[in-house]
């Protein structure tokens, strides 16, 4: 982990509630896709943890959804604004287990970390298929970005207004070597049940510190207690204990 000052390059809405922010600065603390950063916002006590969508040299891209006053304030930040950010948090995805035909399954704002992952897997010469789930056509973002990487991209919408009608699990292909997923917990559970291979899940939890100090985001796993912010957010399928 490193504490850095990053500067907003751009900040624009992709859909009604989802924004893309590009930040410039020292990104050396990040080593894997699926890691996250933790942004201090003026006027709010806790930092906001947000997964990294893409890393390109000294530019970081994050996508975030406006869900409360904090993200609402973030959405108003303009280019040039300097932010206090903890970089390089969490374990991230392990691409070494992917096999040749990894499947990426993302729902809503769970999709962003899969973009950086797809980029890394494609760079490793793998054939990536991405299933992107949304509620409705209006909420779709980053479909073209995934295609531009060279990934096969399947969109699913719950209301059928675009792509496959239904949930991401309704769009699962028959063959894949491994999977990576991130999204709301009901989706993760459905993927857990429907998946035919091993895979990695990225979890969300309300965090205090984001770097392992406060034990705010602990979960129970097959291999013991883990902190989502430190030993997570990515857990392997075989470790997961569903509690709720």
């Amino acid at each position, binding site marked *: *982990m490193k*504490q850095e000052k990053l500067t907003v390059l751009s900040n624009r809405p992709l859909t009604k509630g989802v924004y893309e922010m590009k930040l410039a600065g020292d990104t050396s603390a990040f080593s894997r896709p699926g890691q996250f950063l933790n942004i*201090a916002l003026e006027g*709010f*006590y*806790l*930092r906001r943890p947000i997964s990294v969508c893409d890393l390109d040299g000294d530019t970081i891209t994050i996508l975030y959804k406006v869900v409360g006053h*904090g993200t609402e304030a973030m959405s108003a930040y303009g280019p040039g604004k300097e932010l206090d950010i*903890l970089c390089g948090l969490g374990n991230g995805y392990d691409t070494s287990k992917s096999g040749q035909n990894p499947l990426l399954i993302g729902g809503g704002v769970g999709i962003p970390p899969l973009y950086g992952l797809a980029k890394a897997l494609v760079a490793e010469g793998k054939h990536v298929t991405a299933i992107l789930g949304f509620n409705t056509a209006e909420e779709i973002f980053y479909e073209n970005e995934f295609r531009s990487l060279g990934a096969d991209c399947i969109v699913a919408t719950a209301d059928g207004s675009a792509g496959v009608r239904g949930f991401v699990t309704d769009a699962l292909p028959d063959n894949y070597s491994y999977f990576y997923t991130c999204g709301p917990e009901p989706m993760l559970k459905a993927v857990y049940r429907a998946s035919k291979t091993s895979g990695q899940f990225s979890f969300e*939890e*309300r*965090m*205090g*510190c984001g*770097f*392992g*100090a*406060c*034990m*705010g*985001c*602990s*979960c*129970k796993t097959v291999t013991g*207690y883990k902190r989502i912010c*430190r030993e997570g957010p990515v857990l392997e399928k075989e470790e997961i204990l569903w*509690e*709720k």
Partner: protein
Amino acid sequence: MGKMSVNLCGIELSNPVIPASGTFGYGYEFAELYDINILGTFSFKGTTREARFGNPTPRIAECRAGLINAIGLQNPGVDRVIAEELPKLKKVFHKPVMANVSGFSLEEYVEVCSRLDREEQVGWLEVNISCPNVKKGGASFGMTPEGAAAVTKAVKAVTKKPCIMKLTPNVTDIVSIAKACEDAGADGVSLINTMYGMRIDLKTKRPVIANRMGGYSGPATFPVALRMVYQVYAAVKIPIVGIGGVSTAEDVVEMMLAGATAVGVGAANCVEPFACRNIVEDLPRVMDKYGIENLSDIIGGAQ
């Protein structure tokens, strides 16, 4: 440059800054960030007899100037603390550490304290009789002078290390509880633990925290903590570790003027991992600004 050292129950601290229990783990996460030997000491994660997972999540809720937590004493239990955490800590921290102890019965307090009494690395036992998160937990002991005295007597009987009793602010009269601890032989008191608080999510219309309520900490609690330290200082002779919302070197000085010998820093570590380092580094400037040559001279100076 002024003199920053203070004496806490017979042990010299190079400065009064002490990361508070539960916000600093067992130290080594922070040792990756900076040399934690610049701290006076720190109080490690509250330790119980058995390993505990704690409460279900969500355990955290944000507030306007602080946060609520309901961790519920997650810890690996005293055996693993001694077998695993202390040896790991030894590599990165070369000063006496403050061991924070929690318990659900007098026997548990006694057992955990007597186990930790044998550990050379441990300088002080900080006995938490005030965690509000565990239904059958320490809260009941710290809520009354009798309960506080009972734990104090019991742990004093099994350890030669200085015992600092950690007090809850969620009481009508914290002074009577501090005095009961002193009368029962406590070597110091630390205050305040978190304030019992709550938030509700307007979207779900349910409490944010799974456990519904939790411990409120952060800058919001500072004026209450300061008042209690001021009142307790006037009533007892044992040293006070002042805790509650301290985030800056100025807050440290204010807490010492109220009566604190050493000053705990809690929630600030969660939002600013370098908070304690920044405070230690800023203290000489603040001392200079306010004409303070020797920090230990100002303890209780506003009385």
